[in-house]
């Protein structure tokens, strides 16, 4: 069965995407994060500018493919834990990206078919794929909201049509907030989202770590980002990430490199990612 879709689905998407919001246009002249991830994960929905940015990035940070794969694997383990062990049946996945194998609803509904998943992204290429292709299980439901993470009011309002905010919700913000500079108040965004969900809810977050790579590498990468990538990127240190989890208790092992967060038994990694990751439980 196809997933249910937002009640806005009678309209075409153009009305909401064009002009009235701060969503980017479908622009292939600069790299977009969703398409860069698609390329790094082996997909074919990417464009020349995306590949050029990745190539330039890899010259400075050759472990980027490992970082991206590790982030995806962290998502899988976190969602599996939250569904199978923490009993979560509602997910708010912000920064969905282009659907690939092991999307949140596939992992969660594979364990608990009744799980409801609301995806949020603002990239037009994600919109096209998500509206058309995110397919849900029989009893669960999957919806998609076309919104910028900065627009928490819109996200919470629309998500409340599918999610019951009196019951625990897992909010996932993976490899997303480094695209939100301090001037756009990322801490307020997370606090607002956490305020909307009850005690016993969860926050899963991963974020590029400024203290996980050399200062000169960092500067070179920022040069690549400024030249070639559509949005500004802000690396933050482990210390700077801690306040995102205010009001939560971090699950073991705390805030670690994403590949070190509860790795599957027998996993051997020789590479190291540049992403911090953690899961916190709201007090």
């Amino acid at each position, binding site marked *: 069965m196809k997933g249910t*879709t937002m009640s806005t689905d009678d309209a*075409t998407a*153009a009305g909401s*995407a064009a002009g009235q919001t701060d969503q980017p246009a479908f622009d292939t002249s600069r790299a977009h994060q969703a398409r860069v991830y698609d390329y790094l994960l082996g997909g*074919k929905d990417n464009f020349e500018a995306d590949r050029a940015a990745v190539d330039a990035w890899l010259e400075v940070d050759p472990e980027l493919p490992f970082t991206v794969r590790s982030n995806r694997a962290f998502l899988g383990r976190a969602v599996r834990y939250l569904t199978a062990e923490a009993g979560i049946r509602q997910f708010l996945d912000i920064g969905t990206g282009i659907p690939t194998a092991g999307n949140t609803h596939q992992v969660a509904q594979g364990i608990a078919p009744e799980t409801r998943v609301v995806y949020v992204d603002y990239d*037009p290429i994600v919109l*096209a794929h998500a*509206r*058309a*292709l995110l397919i849900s299980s029989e009893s669960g439901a999957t919806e998609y909201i076309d919104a910028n993470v900065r627009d928490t009011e819109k996200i919470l309002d629309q998500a409340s049509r599918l999610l019951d905010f009196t019951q625990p919700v897992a909010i996932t913000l993976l490899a997303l907030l480094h695209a939100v500079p301090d001037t756009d108040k990322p801490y307020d965004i997370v606090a607002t989202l956490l305020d909307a969900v009850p005690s016993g809810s969860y926050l899963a977050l991963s974020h590029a770590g400024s203290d996980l790579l050399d200062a000169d590498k960092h500067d070179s990468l920022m040069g690549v980002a400024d030249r070639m990538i559509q949005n500004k990127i802000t690396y933050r240190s482990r210390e700077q990430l801690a306040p995102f989890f205010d009001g939560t208790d971090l699950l073991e092992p705390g805030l670690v490199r994403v590949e070190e967060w509860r790795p599957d038994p027998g996993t051997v990694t020789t590479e190291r990612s540049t992403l911090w990751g953690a899961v916190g439980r709201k007090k």
Partner: protein
Amino acid sequence: MSIGTPGDDHDDRPDSGPVELSAEATVLRMLLGAQLRRLREAADISAEKAGYEIRASRSKISRIETGRVGLKIRDIEDLLTLYGVTDPPERSQVLDLARQSSTPDWWTKYGDLLPGWFESYLGLESAAETIRGFQVQFVPGLFQTEDYARAVTRLGHQAAPAEEIERRVALRLQRQELLTRPSPPQVWLIMDEAVLRRPYGGPDVMRAQLRHLLDTARLPHVTLQVVPFSHGGHAAASGSFSILRFAERDLPDIVYIEQLTSAVYLDQRPDVEHYLEVVHQLSGEAMTPAATTRFIEQVAGET
């Protein structure tokens, strides 16, 4: 690259035709190799044993299956037999692909004949993992009912004898079998509202066709979207096309554009990416699959 209109936009390179066309043969050889590998693995036969069958090494089989080298038709026939592929249509599909991939000028022989270029499309279509596209005029061939297919075929071949019309209709219906095979491709098609409104074959045929579209849209691997007249945007500026994507990471997407007397294939990245961009924009402009279903029901009521 262009087939059927050779060299139309590459006049700066005097020999651009052969160079580019050999790239087409490469794609076909890679597809042939990928199909042979799938068949071999389905039959649970090692590369070593397959190599022994045609007096070749294991590494030669690997080179064949990645499309780096071709092989003789007789060897392919032997491999198909070893793999338990005995059904004549299934064998001939692989063999046709082999002939096309080993004949660098297959398009000049068939370029002006419908069966030639269309058969090569069928080979590509059946090998695709994802089929995307946009249709402005007709219900996509994969979704046509027999009566609708007959009506549009008659339009295109008014002087043809009834027997030929029926063969063409049968071909179209046979093509639809890929929707119900064990691992079907993901089919994601966008149609202009005009497709729903123009009643080829008359209102009865069209109503049945619209109901068939609704049934098809329920398949889990099928996504159907309609761009309504009320929306201008890219739908107004684009003609029909399809984009075929293959599971093999190294194979490029192929854009296919059908013309009255020939077809154009594009597999150069800048060309393909232009269409990839358009199809994504169209999908964003189109109604969602759920709204599309309701819309088709509404149009069926008005037809």
